[in-house]
């Protein structure tokens, strides 16, 4: 019996690495339904981000694309306010994540759903033209995705950017949407 330490021996050169992964998880309507299943109506209530309230919001600064407006919807049932859904984008090292935050009328977060995840190699994630393709997307106009991200192992993705985004949105909700 050999006492030699076992070695890693070459097996194969992996074929053609691909660099773009993207998945659309939820459309806007699906996200609304997921976060407020009991609601019977959603009304757009965008929040204008003037420099003044922006400065009042403490906490981490936006990591996503700068907007003058925060997309938000009021969820109601029989006219009674249930809460709001806010949709935001955050940029990581090489990923762009669109997510929706549900906040109850009491200001307590109900949940976070990732609507879309897209990652790419290189700097294009920070290129406004590349990001523009995400704007104004509605259900019925799905993105053409290069490759679904399925079953990828390794290099744990951090959700730090989402966590930061959520605290920013909660602060904004408290300032601008709670009456």
């Amino acid at each position: 019996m050999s006492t030699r330490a076992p070695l890693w021996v070459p097996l194969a050169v992996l074929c053609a690495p691909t660099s773009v992964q993207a998945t659309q998880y939820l459309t806007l309507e699906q996200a609304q339904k997921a976060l407020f299943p009991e609601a019977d109506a959603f009304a757009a209530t965008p929040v204008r981000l003037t420099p003044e309230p922006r400065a009042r919001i403490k906490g981490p600064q936006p990591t996503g694309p700068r907007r003058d407006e925060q997309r938000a919807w009021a969820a109601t049932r029989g006219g009674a306010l249930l809460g709001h859904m806010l949709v935001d984008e955050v940029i990581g090292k090489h990923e762009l994540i669109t997510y929706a935050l549900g906040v109850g009328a009491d200001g307590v977060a109900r949940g976070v759903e990732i609507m879309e995840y897209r990652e790419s190699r290189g700097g294009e994630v920070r290129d406004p033209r590349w990001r523009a393709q995400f704007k104004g997307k509605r259900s019925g106009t799905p993105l053409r995705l290069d490759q679904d991200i399925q079953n990828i192992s390794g290099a744990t993705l951090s959700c730090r950017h989402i966590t930061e985004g959520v605290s920013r949105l909660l602060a904004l909700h408290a300032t601008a949407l709670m009456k």
Partner: protein
Amino acid sequence: MISRARPLLGTIVSIRAGAPEQAVAHAFATIERVHHLMSTHADDSDVSRINARGHRQAVRVHPWTMRVLRAAVSMSRATGGAFDVTLGAQGASYADILLLTGRRVRLKRRASLDLGGIAKGFAVDLAVAALKRCGAGAGSVNAGGDLRVFGKASQSISVRLPGDSSLTAPLLTLRNGACATSGSYFGSRQIDARGRRALCRGYSVTVQARNCMVADALTKALAALGPQPDLLRRFNARAYLVDAAGTAYAPGG
């Protein structure tokens, strides 16, 4: 098939399943429960309570926490301590964890437990069980790279390449199985001595096993120990090393 993703366990957890929406929501709720029990960020989690008081008194924990701790300690024994959920700062080790009857945990000395290297895999296993119980025939759960697939068909698994995690390449196929990948910054002496290229730029170790908790824990042990054919055989697992150039290696001998 529906796909959903949520930020959980410090990463992005995605679930794909041929199941109703409620089944996926139930699977996420299961993961959230594991997160709350085993996080070190919340003061009232089982792990935080053990870390705060376990050296003074026995702490009663949830059955899931007990299961993870039992698995962690037995993995520590099997790997001679290469896998260890105690943070070494105070000189403590897995041998200081006492698992008592009645789901109680005691520490022989002050120690900080961190289940980060095993709880994610456990959460993935529970989520898959939840999906199956709800009638899902096929699908996958992926917690930032710790993943498990189920169903009749084989599924292709890609790995992120060490050195450039935005690049992925197909490594293996899984059918009713799990895998996890761990990076390492240390070159393997054996391979370096034989002049293999690109290893100094890093490599990752992927372990394929029947369940994700074992795969998760074994990647950590193998990243530290190098290939361990006996250990892998014992857990009925396989391991692959991938270097930054995209070459895959298997344990020899």
